[in-house]
């Protein structure tokens, strides 16, 4: 059995050796000689070897079947990642030593300040072990930051060298010098990976340093203080992209109770849209959507802390066996939707873009399922429209099918974006970045298909899903009658086709995804045939069988 201590010993060795090779490389650049060259190359072989030993030990330690604590697994994973990156640094040293041979004048490079880059790399390497040992987050962040420093220093030198190159003199010396700085800059990339591995070892989650900094700033803005290493930090899978944090300790205004928060970081436009939408929902329907706790923008990214709403998502409930809960949740959802739509309803037709949305996502679908598009066919005298033709004729039909009124829509009403809090008996909406005024049929169709496409095939589970689908569809059809929405059926068919077709890109089960694709075609063919028969839209019958599998 490999002991953790022996891994840690080798970890110390590889750190010392990497410091050694960086120092040796610097000495060689200062004063090249065959002996000092061999010193660099020889050390690299040794470091390669050490890295392999460490990797073997790490994997063996984890896979021996003996109980290794989660925390130790984290430490081992961090060591393995760091070892790989130290070996990259050593490779860059060898590359530098080789480059020196191309300098026509070995002293040429001395007029450029390479020493400062070497010093920064060396200082970082020295800090790795104490940071690892003492779990100092600030130390890990400082190591990450070296990458920015080295980038900046590289850029400075680059800006000096470029105009000199243009003079056409000392070209070989200049290019070689540039290469050497480039290899030094690459050591910074490896150090960034090392720093992120250290953060992982400390907080137990893989997190990119920019996300980490965004999180820290968001927490600071929200008035939380304290060490981030005390937070229980948990990434959220699936569509609730971002990370969930549960903070241990006092939260201002939280009566000292521990509070959970959702942290989202990413694309500026998306996060900004989410924030604006959350604030709008809060004004209109306080408590229905998460409250914004803090918001922070960088140049291209933004981060958002929002309230974590406890409860079950409706997909969890649909999959679960508690029928009573499922019924209560569905009743509550219907009540919430009726309230939201009634209160935000605006008279006047609004165009929809269901077919356009299919077309926009068609290449994603074809990437996953290359055959999910039909070419024109004839069975004797009967023509089968190609997918392309079908879509363009469906688009023409859709233009005649505006929604008679608009409401504030969720925009992505997947079952997993609806949370049911059983204790309070209320529904919450999450992930609202696509929310806008539009056709309520879109929300209904997305919700229906999110249930329909759940990859559950046992009869009992399917019956539960069918019940949800049936109830929500009849609720929506009832509203349509009440609100005299004469094109409901045809719009629903088009919207369902859109969700079925575009959802196939998330479904790899060949039979199930093909069924979705064929049903989408069937629905569109129905809409097109009805439109071209010039029958009134009110006489369109939605073939609701498409929702049952």
């Amino acid at each position, binding site marked *: 059995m490999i002991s953790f201590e022996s891994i840690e010993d080798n970890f110390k060795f590889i750190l010392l050796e990497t410091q050694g090779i960086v120092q040796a490389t610097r000495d060689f650049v200062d004063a090249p000689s065959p002996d000092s060259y061999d010193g660099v190359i020889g050390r690299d072989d040794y470091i390669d070897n050490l890295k392999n030993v460490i990797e073997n030990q790490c994997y063996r330690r984890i896979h021996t079947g003996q109980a290794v604590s989660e925390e130790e697994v984290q430490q081992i994973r961090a060591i393995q990642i760091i070892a790989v990156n130290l070996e990259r640094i050593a490779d860059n040293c060898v590359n530098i030593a080789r480059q020196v041979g191309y300098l026509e004048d070995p002293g040429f490079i001395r007029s450029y300040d390479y020493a400062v880059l070497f010093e920064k790399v060396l200082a970082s390497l020295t800090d790795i072990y104490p940071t690892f040992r003492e779990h100092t987050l600030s130390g890990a962040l400082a190591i990450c930051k070296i990458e920015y420093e080295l980038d900046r220093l590289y850029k400075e030198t680059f800006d000096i060298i470029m105009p000199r190159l243009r003079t056409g003199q000392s070209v070989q010396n200049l290019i070689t010098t540039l290469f050497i700085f480039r290899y030094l800059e690459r050591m910074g990339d490896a150090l960034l990976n090392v720093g992120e591995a250290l953060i992982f070892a400390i907080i137990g989650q893989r997190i990119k340093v920019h996300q980490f900094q965004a999180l820290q700033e968001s927490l600071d803005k929200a008035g939380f203080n304290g060490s981030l290493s005390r937070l229980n930090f948990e990434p959220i899978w699936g569509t609730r992209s971002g990370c969930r944090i549960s903070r241990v300790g006092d939260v201002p205004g939280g009566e000292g109770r521990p509070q959970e928060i959702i942290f989202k970081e990413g694309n500026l436009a998306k996060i900004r849209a989410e924030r604006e939408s959350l604030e709008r929902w809060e004004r209109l329907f306080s408590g229905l959507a998460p409250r914004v706790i803090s918001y922070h923008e960088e140049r291209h990214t933004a981060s958002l802390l929002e309230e974590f709403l406890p409860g079950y998502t409706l997909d969890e409930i649909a999959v679960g066996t508690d029928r009573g809960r499922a019924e209560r949740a569905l009743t509550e959802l219907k009540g919430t939707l009726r309230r939201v739509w009634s209160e935000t309803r605006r008279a006047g037709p609004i165009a929809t873009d269901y077919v356009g949305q299919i077309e926009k996502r068609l290449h994603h679908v074809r990437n996953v399922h290359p055959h999910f598009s039909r*070419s024109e*066919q*004839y*069975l*004797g*005298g009967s023509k089968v429209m190609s997918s392309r033709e079908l879509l363009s004729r469906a688009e023409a039909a859709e233009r005649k099918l505006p929604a008679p009124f608009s409401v504030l829509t969720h925009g992505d009403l997947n079952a997993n974006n609806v949370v049911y809090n059983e204790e309070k008996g209320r529904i919450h909406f999450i992930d609202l970045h696509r929310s806008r005024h539009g056709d309520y049929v879109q929300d209904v169709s997305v919700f229906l298909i999110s249930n329909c496409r759940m990859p559950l095939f046992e009869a009992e589970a399917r019956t539960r899903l069918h019940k949800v689908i049936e109830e929500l569809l009849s609720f929506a059809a009832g509203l349509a009658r009440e609100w005299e929405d004469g094109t409901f059926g045809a719009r629903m068919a088009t919207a369902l086709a859109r969700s079925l077709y575009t959802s196939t890109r998330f479904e790899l089960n060949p039979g199930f995804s093909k069924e979705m694709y*064929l049903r989408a075609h*069937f629905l569109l*063919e*129905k809409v097109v045939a009805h439109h071209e028969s010039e029958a009134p839209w009110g006489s369109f019958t939605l073939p609701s069988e498409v929702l049952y599998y």
Partner: protein
Amino acid sequence: MSDDKRFEYESIHDPQTITAYLQSVLEGIVQRRIVLTSDGDEIVLRPGNLLKLAVKAKRKDDTSRLSIKISWKDSPNSESAEE
């Protein structure tokens, strides 16, 4: 040679549409010439005087299946006439 020529079609329809498609195929049988085209590629079948008809029906759980298979041996004349 028309060896290995294939035509495949798969879809979901309501009974009226399926009837219309089958009707087109039936007409072809009566006229002894069924043309099937896919993206410009044509396959012409010439049903002869002797056609084998196999009908299979199956019901399992909540799925039913009815397969109708019509096959025949092409006479050498009909093939070369097509090529």
